[in-house]
């Protein structure tokens, strides 16, 4: 079973990564993550918003109400400088972890 620390870490990386390309509101963010990971990562409302609020509290992202093209008010999130700074080491950490796991499983299968 995947521990909550690992789940949270991957979720944070996923959110920071999709926001790197521009501001998004919650629903669109969840859709992008699902599409780009081909369904491997899925965020329900219950999983997404507590995570977004926590990341906002930490100063990694900032939400602001904006008017969409359809005229609806939506809260859009964008990366803050602190979030941009966080993304690079986070990516490196996860790349190292997955690299290590890959090596380990290859050795195990050999």
């Amino acid at each position, binding site marked *: 079973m995947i521990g909550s620390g690992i789940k949270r870490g991957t979720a944070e990386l996923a959110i920071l990564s999709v926001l790197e390309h521009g501001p998004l509101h919650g629903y669109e963010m969840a859709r992008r993550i699902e599409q780009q990971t081909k369904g491997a990562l899925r965020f329900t409302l219950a999983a997404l*918003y*507590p995570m977004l609020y926590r990341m906002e509290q930490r100063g990694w992202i900032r939400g602001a109400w904006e008017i969409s093209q359809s005229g609806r008010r939506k809260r859009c999130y964008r990366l803050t400088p602190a979030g941009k700074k966080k993304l690079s080491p986070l990516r490196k950490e996860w790349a190292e972890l997955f690299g290590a796991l890959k090596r380990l499983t290859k050795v195990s299968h050999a």
Partner: protein
Amino acid sequence: MPDWQELVRQRLSSLALDAEEKDEVHAELAAHLEESYEVFRAEGLPEYEAVQRTLAQVADWKELQRKIDSARIGKDTMTNRVTQLWLPGLLTFALSMGLLELVQKFGPRPIILNLDKGTPVLMFYTSWLLILPLAGALGAYLSKRAGGSVRMVLASSIFPVLPFAVVFLIAIPVGLVIGHNLAHHIVTAAFFTMGLGWVLAPGATLFAGGLLVQFLFSRRSGFHGVTTS
């Protein structure tokens, strides 16, 4: 179609947030549910099923409420209070007092109003009052930059007058009760003049600076269009 706003408001009614924040969370989650429902409908699901699948995103509303409370007012609250209120507020206070010191030493003489014979006088350092909006704006800007809410931003801007307000609102009435030998009309006049000179007038000018920053920030974030599906 359900009234998503009402549904979220009912199910997350006990969020431990202030009214403004609570409304924001309700509106945001309702917008998410509504969009989700519309996509299911556009994919051809009948209304009942679309509603059920939309609601299935939240298995336990109580748990969601707990998580949101924990995320928004949890362990980082202290850090946020420091960066969004105390630090900008104290800087505004230091700047205001520094400016007052400079004005008293090098500025023009204050306008002095004699209210009545034997009662305290009202002194206005007009040049100080004229530059105070800058200090209020600085406090508001620093708070906003740290992600402060409207309330935090405005509180940071008027922070320098808050200690005076507390002193006047507590110390003078207490002094009135304890000091029986003080004439009531003197205490009342002191309360009025000091309150006006040290709380209301500077508070209003600081607030003006803070309000301007808040207005500029809200304009900047309010007119950005975004692409949605």
